[in-house]
């Protein structure tokens, strides 16, 4: 197809990285984070509120493995986020020479812009999953009785 613009195309390397690869790189981190948040919140609440009566001791009967399960979920979600990061790094390597100038500041080249966004998103959401993993290791499941 002949050029639609007098100027150079905004993403010369768009052929080097498929759009769905970039979409995965961008979505994996947030998806992993949302999954662990909702599953973790749901399970940890249900452990203490199986019905409208709160349990004041921990762990409730049948829920002794709760922390372990939550940990497994978080590790799996972290793996997903890191997978997105890994894919984004690959896309970034393939498109980093798309245009002249530094990517952070000048930022020309749409493909490498999205690839870089994927790298940063993967990093941020991996850290965010880490923030939610720390309490699994340190916070008791339910309320403790005062005293």
């Amino acid at each position, binding site marked *: 197809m002949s050029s639609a613009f007098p100027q150079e195309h905004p993403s010369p390397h768009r052929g080097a990285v498929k759009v769905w690869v970039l979409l995965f790189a961008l979505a994996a981190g*947030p998806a992993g984070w949302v999954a662990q948040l909702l599953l973790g919140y749901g399970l940890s609440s249900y452990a203490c509120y199986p019905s409208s009566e709160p349990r004041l001791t921990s762990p409730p009967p049948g829920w002794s493995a709760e922390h372990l399960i939550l940990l497994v979920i978080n590790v799996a979600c972290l793996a997903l986020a890191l997978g997105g990061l890994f894919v984004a790094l690959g896309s970034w390597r393939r498109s980093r020479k798309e245009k002249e*100038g530094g990517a952070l500041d000048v*930022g020309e080249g749409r493909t490498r812009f999205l690839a870089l966004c994927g790298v940063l998103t993967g990093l941020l959401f991996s850290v965010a999953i880490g923030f939610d993993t720390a309490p699994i290791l340190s916070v008791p499941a339910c309320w403790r009785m005062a005293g």
Partner: protein
Amino acid sequence: MTAWEDSRVPETADLTQDVRDRLKEIWEEKPGLLGWISSVDHKEIGKRYIVTAFALLIVGGIEALIMRLQLAGPERRLLSPEAYDQLFTMHGVTMIFLYASPVLSGFSNYLWPLLLGSRDMAFPRLNALSYWIYLAAAVFLYAGFVVGHGPDDGWFNYVPYASREYNPAFNIDIYALGLILLGISTTVGSANFVVTFLRTRCPGMSINRVPILTWGTLTASVGNILAVPSVSLAFFLLWMDRQFGTHFYDANQGQPLLWQHLFWMFGHPWVYVVVLPAMGMVSDGLPTFCRRPLVGYTPVALATVTTMALGFGVWVHHMFATGLPNLALSFFSGASIAIVIPSAVAVFAWTATIWTGRPRITTPFLFFAGMIVLFVIGGVSGFMTASAPLDWQLTDTYFVVAHLHYVLIGINVFPVVGGLYYWFPKFTGRMLDERLGKWNFWTMFVGFNVAFLPMHLLGVMGMPRRVYTYPQGMGWTATNVVVSLGAVLFAIGVLLLLINVAVSLKRGRIAGDNPWGAPTLEWATTSPPPPYNFAVIPSVASRHPLWEDALGESTARSRIDHGLLLDRGRETIATSPLDAEPNLILEMPADTPAPFLLAVGLTGIFAGAAGHWWWLSGAGGALLVLALLMWFWPRRMHADEPEAEPAHV
């Protein structure tokens, strides 16, 4: 009239007076009241949004001042507890729902097509509808208040306070229905922004070249599309509970906490809805006055989007004190703390832009830079309350009032006023006065901090929120006097703004196309812009179309004076979502009263529901259907249009 065409190669032309005259004829609004009601020009609608939102800001501000008079001393009885409840509720409702988001919609409506190099929004009629419903919802929400039955359980409206059992009059019903009505306005407006962003950027404006303001409003709009149904549903279920005896929120059969979940699943994303576009204004405005591009465009654009994404997972931090289990809370604590990262990215990017630039200390610069200071203070107090144990100590005290005002006034009002100083010349063709502007800034900035910084202290000393008065001898009196004096000073600052606007509208210096030497496309057209925005559609080759020669970053050059003509009726170009390659010639709608009629019909439905006047709802519904038919009735095909596909070219 030209013959019907299935497709064509769009003509290109140089920017000449002849082209301007022809387009003016096509795009000009009709005179008279009907013309005014029927206008679908995004600039007209944007101005209406801004003026209405500012009027409501002043109303909400007066409500705040009356409350500060009451709280200036202990045991004052200027207001009864009932009156105080209505006042603080309406203050919150007004500021959060009727000012903070609509004013940003106003700026975005006005600016977006100009920033994107287009001739209007993707759905001009939807734009008009969004404004008319907003206006109707504002009137609706105030209708109860003016007859003494305004909402009175706080803007958050918790059950069971808001249940019929404890609040039997129609105060809450007005709030419930009014907010659902407003939600429709917000949703259609948001859909318009999303499609406008994806489809109507000028050729060459790939998504890594759009101004940050459009990232901010796009993110807010996607947030609205996903979050507004939650609050609309919450209020609908409440209205059902109150009017028809359903059992969603009652403690015996339903679950009162359902309200808090639904409300805050919406409420926290909404916080970002009312700040992200304003942060975008700062990101686009600061570089102009620092005479260098924004440091770190990519991380700042991404910070905007990820803040909203994380913002969907923090709603329970508004519910730390409701007795949920420890571990369940800590997930939301972790998410809330994670938001610090993108926020800090933005703050460091702005600071670095100022640090490495050559700042000109103008009024908009002061407001934008002042915002950074207030954002840091509000951000740190937010970070503190993100920690559950600290929140248990501080929740429902004045500490939280201080925090939320630093965030909302700091990140919304300051950028908006700065944005008004920045874009006023584009809106009106005249500059606001710089000397008065600096007085304006310092009065507001000092007044704001005198009013709200001591509130942190009041909170730590244990003064609860939402109390209509307090006893003597608590040790709160002197601080409250300072807070009230600060509020008055802040109000004087806002008054200076109004004076400046009133005077400059008539006597301000003539601005010219680009008075600040700014880099983006809105400054490439005249001030104020013609009805068609751009006589030829620009095509851009970088993020700073007007700074390319000065920066010399690359050899590519944008074209402003030569581009697509599109003059066979109201037309503009549609482009592909990622790389903005032209892929369709858009036929834009003519002015029409259908959006106004639709809004009237919809308001009739809601007013009827409020009073159980079902005949009124029925009439409103009929008008709504008529307006919809008028809106969507297809255009008759041209006589020479072939029925079947011609043999392939």
